[in-house]
């Protein structure tokens, strides 16, 4: 069963890449767009650190590390689940959702597999390069366990991103168009790129306990630079990913049953 889904997914992606080759220029522009967006963020950090030696105890390279780390779960989510934007903005509003219910495969899988957003490779490339750069500069050493933990954190972070997106996108089953809410949400995730100690209490509360973006970047990164303990950082991230996914998937299923009861 899992094998079938994996095989299907590979096929979906392969096909999509073929289409991509036709729109090469578009792809490069999109890629450039993301690269530049990341670049601007880095320039900002650079300029800040021309004024001060450290930010709330975080050095330039450590800030760079958390910034870089934040790109990876976000990029991964962006790469794989871009169709959720269309769900929130178009698919349900235009009554195009039926076809996902008419196939003998999980409708969420079908929806997500249909769209692959290679532009996000820009985020991933920048993230990886910056992580390597900053860890070398900080002089961090990674044991094998550390690397595994790192990968786990990136995956959990991506799950959190996707779950939050899935939750708000599913609201479209009730309100027809939830795309702008998704966009606000995306803006909220900007908070996770920097140490949360710079924020006021309310903001910290929101991004930790309500919409847990802090666990997509800050906490995992803080663990690796020894600014947060393992239980909060690693355990918290894993817990957050499980919780957010459960809430999101439940909302998605509920949304489908509402869709099936009301028709359109």
């Amino acid at each position, binding site marked *: 069963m899992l094998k*079938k889904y994996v095989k*299907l997914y590979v*096929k979906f992606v392969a*096909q999509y890449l073929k*289409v991509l080759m036709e729109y090469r220029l578009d792809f490069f522009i999109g890629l450039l767009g993301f690269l530049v967006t990341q670049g601007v963020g880095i320039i900002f950090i650079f300029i800040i650190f021309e004024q001060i030696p450290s930010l709330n105890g975080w050095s330039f390279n450590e800030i760079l590390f958390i910034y870089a780390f934040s790109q990876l779960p976000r990029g991964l989510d962006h790469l794989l689940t871009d169709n959720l934007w269309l769900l929130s903005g178009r698919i349900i509003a235009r009554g195009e959702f*039926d076809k996902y*219910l*008419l196939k*003998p495969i999980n409708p969420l899988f079908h929806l997500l597999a249909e769209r692959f957003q290679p532009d996000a490779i820009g985020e991933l490339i920048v993230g990886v390069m910056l992580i390597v750069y900053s860890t070398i500069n900080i002089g961090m050493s990674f044991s094998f366990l550390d690397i595994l933990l790192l990968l786990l954190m990136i995956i959990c972070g991506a799950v959190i991103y996707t779950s939050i997106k899935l939750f708000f996108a599913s609201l479209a089953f009730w309100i027809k168009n939830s795309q702008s809410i998704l966009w606000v949400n995306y803006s909220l995730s900007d908070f996770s790129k920097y140490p949360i100690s710079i924020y006021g209490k309310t903001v910290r509360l929101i991004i930790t306990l309500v919409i847990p973006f802090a666990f997509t970047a800050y906490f995992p990164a803080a663990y690796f630079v020894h600014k947060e303990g393992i239980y909060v950082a690693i355990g918290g991230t894993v817990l957050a990913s499980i919780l957010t996914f459960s809430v999101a998937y439940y909302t998605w299923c509920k949304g489908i049953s509402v869709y099936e*009861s009301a028709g359109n």
Partner: protein
Amino acid sequence: MGTVKGLFSKEYIVKTAVNKISLDIKKGEIVGYIGANGAGKSTTIKIMTGILIPTSGNCTVNGIVPYENRQKNAKQIGVVFGQRTQLWWDLPLTETFSILKDIYDVSEDDFKGRMKFLNEVLGLDEFIHSAVRTLSLGQRMRADLGAALIHNPKILFLDEPTIGLDVLVKEKLRKAIKEINKKFQTTVILTTHDLSDIEELCDRIIIIDKGSKVYDGSVNEIKNEYGFLRTIEMSIIDIKKALEIDIAKEFNLLEEDAKTWICGNSMFVKFNRNKISVSDIVAHIMGKVQVVDMSIKETDIEEIVKKIYAYEVSL
């Protein structure tokens, strides 16, 4: 939403009807389902395909309750929406079929055999390598039909499949549906506004109006019961002599039972065959003028359906 009753049998598809009417459809039947917009057609189709849950009552399709076992039901049905495609828009058509093969677990041999057959019947080869977004409407409909059949579903739901198509493509599509039905005994449920679809394809017709079933029977039955009107066209030499002929007056009938008129060199008589026979009319006219050619036309379904709607006749 009305109440729904169901019958269960391996060979029958239980159809949801509205207002406590149930039907059974035998395997391999081609059923036409007509009704005005808002009459309840889409609702019933959606229940049968599992994307809508009835508020009360139940429905089983070939032994499966569609909205409870959606994915299981999905394996045995094929659906074509006239207005929306289920194909992958940016990809060449071959890829859609390849992906569907995996989604429905179609074996390699079955896949090859069916692709060959669908190709012959739908002519897919001419555009199988093009991206779906470049296809014309007619090509897309043929492709959607093929895609709905690649897993050899037991039941095929067609929701307005010929909408917007030109006559030639409609013909091709209808022919394909007939052949598929013949070869695989696929049960076909077809909703349409195009009554010639019904006339050409369907063994049976169900008319639904305002959520109630208004007629359910074979197409022939409906023609016999309601299609009592015939029209004779006769080519006449010296048409001037025919001007005085008025069948209604001469046989003492109401205008609606025998209408006579002239157009060019032809004389037309539209008559109720229950009130007067063809032979009587022809004999009468031939007694007065010289008839050189003649043809008789039955009432078409469209008129019949209009009549049914107008009288709101129910079984």
